[in-house]
């Protein structure tokens, strides 16, 4: 999966665990960029009486680098606060919830939005915005879509924000991929799978009908571009921004047992989760360093560059699928650093490799989701993004419907190495391999407007 439970320590702390990050020029308002950071992954919809929520003790941040130094030039901070209306009930809601201030809704969550500029100056943009409730069920919440829509707020400074539960739109066949790298459509070609199957299998979206908590913000492009430009050419370095999200906790917590209100949380914030490109920490970074990676800034990522230059998965593919990745095996044997993957994941794609496209942020090696903001939204988005000639798709930012798993597998399999070495001929399988899923395997349909992610699955119909 993109980054759900991707590191040993953070997998035990789901409230602070970033699972997916999306960034794209907004199709509903092309003068803005939409950024969505998902947390609290893999929520079963039927989770009463204590439904999911953000952590009041977690600092959630979305960072934007506009000058390529892998340090934030603009950060949005989100802090949450839970309020209980009725101390004498065990219920989340004591009747139907028909509005965001409905007295029947017992446990509500609010959040503040703070903007921090490149100099560290912070400004509270709003101190109390409402989250919608979790989608308990249609008995409790007869019109969930209205509540969610009411929770979309436009700030005086021009940003649009939303924070709350959404259907997880990431699609991945976790069950097969982490069962020795099996892709069900190719299970009969797999080293072990071919002893069990003589037919291609059908992929299963392991995350379907699960929810997440999303922090979504839509920001005017001029506010995120270097120099505040309202319009830029695609070749302009100032057109490209780098994006990542992080979650932090106070360095010290002292629990006082029955004196709950006396619990102490003090000290600087310590970063416990980070996410830029999908799958970076999950697939590239060795398990022993995943939690370290989570604690660091993208500016530190050069220390992980070796894992990008020689990714473990590239060495596994020829072994797991004998005879299908012979050219990749030769490339691995030659120990040629994967400059293509370094460009895609760490520096951005320089001008000249792909016609009329670049999203480089310079020489600093950093895992950030890079978006050339001069590329308008595609009229006919392709799930394979840049690999399919769709310049508005991953790895130029990331749209919700992009098949980042298949794109990443193809890239690691060698498809993109030909961009940097024209003498290299990718294996035929590298251009065909895919996980066998698409956004159509997500049961909750995407919205056509902000915050785009679909209505969360309700607990009544998804027990």
């Amino acid at each position: 999966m993109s980054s759900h439970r991707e590191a040993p320590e953070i997998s035990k702390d789901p409230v602070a665990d970033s699972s997916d990050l999306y960034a794209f020029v907004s199709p509903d308002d092309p003068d803005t960029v939409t950024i969505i950071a998902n947390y609290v992954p893999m929520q079963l919809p039927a989770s009463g009486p204590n439904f999911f929520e953000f952590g009041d003790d977690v600092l959630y941040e979305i960072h934007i680098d506009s000058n390529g130094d892998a340090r934030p030039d603009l950060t949005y901070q989100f802090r949450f606060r839970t309020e209980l209306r009725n101390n004498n009930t065990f219920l989340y809601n004591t009747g139907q919830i028909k509005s965001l201030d409905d007295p029947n809704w017992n446990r509500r969550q609010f959040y503040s939005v703070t903007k921090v500029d490149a100099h560290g100056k912070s400004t509270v943009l709003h101190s109390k915005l409402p989250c919608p409730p979790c989608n308990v069920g249609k008995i409790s919440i007869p019109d969930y879509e209205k509540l969610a829509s009411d929770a979309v707020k436009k700030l005086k400074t021009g940003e649009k924000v939303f924070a709350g539960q959404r259907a997880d739109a990431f699609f991945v066949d976790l069950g097969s991929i982490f069962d020795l790298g099996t892709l069900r459509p190719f299970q009969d070609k797999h080293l072990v799978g071919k002893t069990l199957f003589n037919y291609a299998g059908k992929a299963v979206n392991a995350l379907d009908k699960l929810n997440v908590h999303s922090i979504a913000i839509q920001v005017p492009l001029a506010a995120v571009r270097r120099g505040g430009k309202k319009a830029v050419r695609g070749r302009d370095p100032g057109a490209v921004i780098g994006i990542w999200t992080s979650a932090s906790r106070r360095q010290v917590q002292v629990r006082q047992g029955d004196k709950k209100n006396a619990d102490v949380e003090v000290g600087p914030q310590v970063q416990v989760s980070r996410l830029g490109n999908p799958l970076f920490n999950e697939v590239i970074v060795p398990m022993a360093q995943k939690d370290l990676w989570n604690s660091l800034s993208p500016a530190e990522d050069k220390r992980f560059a070796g894992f990008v230059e020689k990714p473990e998965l590239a060495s596994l593919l020829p072994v797991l699928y004998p005879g299908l990745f012979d050219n990749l095996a030769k490339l691995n044997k030659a120990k040629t650093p994967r400059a293509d993957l370094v460009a895609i994941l760490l520096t951005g794609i320089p001008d000249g490799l792909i016609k009329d496209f670049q999203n480089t942020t310079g020489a600093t090696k950093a895992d950030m989701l890079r978006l050339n903001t001069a590329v308008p939204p595609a009229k006919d988005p392709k799930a394979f993004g840049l690999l399919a000639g769709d310049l508005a798709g991953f790895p130029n930012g990331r749209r919700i419907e992009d098949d980042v798993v298949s794109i990443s597998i193809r890239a690691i399999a060698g498809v993109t190495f030909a961009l940097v070495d024209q003498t290299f001929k990718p294996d035929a399988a590298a251009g065909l391999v895919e996980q066998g899923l698409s956004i159509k395997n997500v049961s909750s349909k995407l919205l056509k407007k902000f915050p785009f992610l679909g209505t969360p699955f309700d607990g009544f119909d998804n027990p």
Partner: protein
Amino acid sequence: MSRVRYGSRAVNRLSRRRVLAIAATAGVGVSVAGVTGLSLAGETAAKDDGQPLVISLRDASKGTFDIFSGGSKTTLTDKKLAARLLKAVKR
């Protein structure tokens, strides 16, 4: 997110699960030998009078303490205080 925070690699590398803390209330009578203040943009430096602070004896042999208060961490060295605390907990 401040640049200051990203410069604080030593702090970031600390596992929150490894922090051994001694809770105390404000008013520790020791002199500050060295201070490495750490602040975070957006973490308002409000007055913490009366608020709890937490002291961690990071290196008993050198008497190095980390003092966590509000959103900041301050380091001081006091061998005598370290010795008294160790005696108090029979170590």
